[in-house]
């Protein structure tokens, strides 16, 4: 059983801060991996030429990304003489002797304009051929991102699925009576506080292009839905109607949101414009609770939680409205549904007795699989490659983030050294 620990530390840096100015935080998300994939590809990552001089080395980040996925076994590259940087320098029998099936090599060159030229190649150690080769031009501040992009290419080449190491996550940290909305890299690094408030913040949701967050803030003594730009920091209340406003979910076009409003009595689903303009369009009409909407990737339908049948269950309705159809039948409490980005399944929280666990249900077969043992698991959301699910859990009364592979085999735990972490959401793939 593969069991490894990755301890990485970096002081958080704030880009910008809204509302009251939060005190500088040194909070760090540390990731612990439990379990591993059914098969792990043994891969050696040779240190890149001249990366020793970098403030941020490339290859340790690549190795950590691949190891964290649970799908790779990192083969020690130490002591290889000479260390290969170009394809013709790779001594394949030596790498094969160490068990490697793939070898990553590369170089770093400082350019006259201060940027770095970073080249890497992924070599098949068995067939002795090149599987991929790319060159990146990066500033010093972009070195970690470049490493994540390299890991994405390797992951994609060797597993066939898109890599998600260069994506970001958002989550909320409660520190005493303060609430902070954070955005961090998918590996927990570089956390920035994008909003701080003395009132609760819940339900952050990424816009499809990853440039905006919708969330619910209680700063006006009631739940109000805001949309905030991550590029400018500007924010706007987009649903602030009589009563409560909550549960924002982006349409794939990025122009509309599904939300839960109570302005007409009861908690019901509406569609609004993401810029707050116009009048809400009512989507469901009944006397039960309808909430937690989530758009299908094609934008055609919405899954949501409703207690119209007497207990909270997952339903699906066309994005144009109409008669909802019930999707979950096992158990008396199934909530918080989120589509997988490939559209084939949805994740949700199911309650068994006093235990709340992350489950997935396949749309076609209706097969349900529980992925976690349950404790107090909440707020599941898929990674953009549909392979991992990020969720909130609790350890000794403290909120933590955790992730589980969609087959349940690989588990990761993110722990923050200060505060209570909750309400995570995995951001989209960003092209470029």
């Amino acid at each position, binding site marked *: 059983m593969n069991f490894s620990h990755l301890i990485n530390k970096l002081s958080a840096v704030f880009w910008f801060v809204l509302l009251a100015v939060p005190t500088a935080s040194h909070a760090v998300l540390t990731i612990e991996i439990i379990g591993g994939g059914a098969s792990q590809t043994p891969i050696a990552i040779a240190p890149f030429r001249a990366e020793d001089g970098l403030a941020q080395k490339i290859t340790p980040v690549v190795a950590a990304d691949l190891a964290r996925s649970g799908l790779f076994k990192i083969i020690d590259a130490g002591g290889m003489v000479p260390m290969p940087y170009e394809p013709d320098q790779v001594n394949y029998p030596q790498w094969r002797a160490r068990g490697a099936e793939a070898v990553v090599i590369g170089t770093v060159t400082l350019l006259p304009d201060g940027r770095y030229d970073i080249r890497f190649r992924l070599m098949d150690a068995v067939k002795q051929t090149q599987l991929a080769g790319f060159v990146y031009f990066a500033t010093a501040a972009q070195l970690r991102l470049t490493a994540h992009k390299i890991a994405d290419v390797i992951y994609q080449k060797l597993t066939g699925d898109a890599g998600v190491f260069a994506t970001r996550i958002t989550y909320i940290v409660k520190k005493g009576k303060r609430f902070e909305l954070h955005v961090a890299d998918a590996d927990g690094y570089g956390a920035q506080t994008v909003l701080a408030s003395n009132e609760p913040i819940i339900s952050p949701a990424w816009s499809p292009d990853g440039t905006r967050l919708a969330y619910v803030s209680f700063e006006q003594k009631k739940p109000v839905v805001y949309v905030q730009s991550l590029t400018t920091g500007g924010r706007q209340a987009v649903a602030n109607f009589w009563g409560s406003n909550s549960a924002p979910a982006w349409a794939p076009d990025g122009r509309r949101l599904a939300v839960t409003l109570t302005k007409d009595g009861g908690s019901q689903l509406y569609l609004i414009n993401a810029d707050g303009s116009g009048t809400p369009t009512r989507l469901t009409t009944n006397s039960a609770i309808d909430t937690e909407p989530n758009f299908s990737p094609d934008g055609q339908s919405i899954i949501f939680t409703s207690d119209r049948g007497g207990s909270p269950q997952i339903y699906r309705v066309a994005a144009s409205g109409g008669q909802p159809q019930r999707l979950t039948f096992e158990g008396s409490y199934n909530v*918080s549904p989120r589509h997988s980005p490939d559209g084939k399944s949805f994740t949700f929280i199911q309650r068994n007795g006093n235990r709340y666990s992350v489950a997935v249900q396949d749309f076609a077969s209706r097969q349900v699989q529980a992925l976690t043992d349950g404790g107090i698991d909440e707020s599941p959301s898929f990674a953009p490659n549909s392979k991992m699910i990020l969720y909130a859990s609790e350890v000794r009364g403290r909120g933590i983030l955790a992730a589980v592979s969609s087959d349940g085999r690989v588990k990761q735990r993110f722990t923050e050294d200060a505060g209570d972490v909750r309400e995570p959401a995995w951001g989209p793939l960003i092209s470029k």
Partner: protein
Amino acid sequence: MKKLIAGLLLLAGVLAGCSSTPTKEQDGAAVEDRSPSAEAPAKPATKPSDSGVTSKPLGTSSVSANPLKDPNNILSKRSIYFDYDSNIIKDEYKPVVTAHAKYLSQNRAAKVAVQGNTDERGSREYNLALGQRRADAVKQMMQLLGAGAAQIEPVSFGEEKPRAQGSSETAFSENRRADIVYQGE
């Protein structure tokens, strides 16, 4: 069926509330002598819109008493507690809801938020909707007793603003609650 029963219980509650508090209603005059702090700002001391009702100074001791803050007045009670997974207003809280409904019906400029809360178990967003249902139940009863719909905004805090911390049944029951908060408070 469940809703029908809930509706009947609510109606029964309204009737019980009406008939069980006549003595409190005699305090209506005192309620009418409201302090400025309970009102929206910049209102005249006398309110011409309420026909036949005028406020005038009484003796020195009682004039400054704000019935909403007077611990001896039922209007100082602001919390309605609920059973697990329930939005039924229990008999013991009907006099409180009734008193506030009466106050609102006699003070048309007064506005309240009814803030629904839940315990921490389960989905945050679903709990927000459950808290809303509690706030809606209080609003509905107040409206049936004569308060104006526009005077009462039912909102929910769900599990986000627990009054009692911790995961004990004592904490849970303290947090299954709706609070009546007057505008400006």
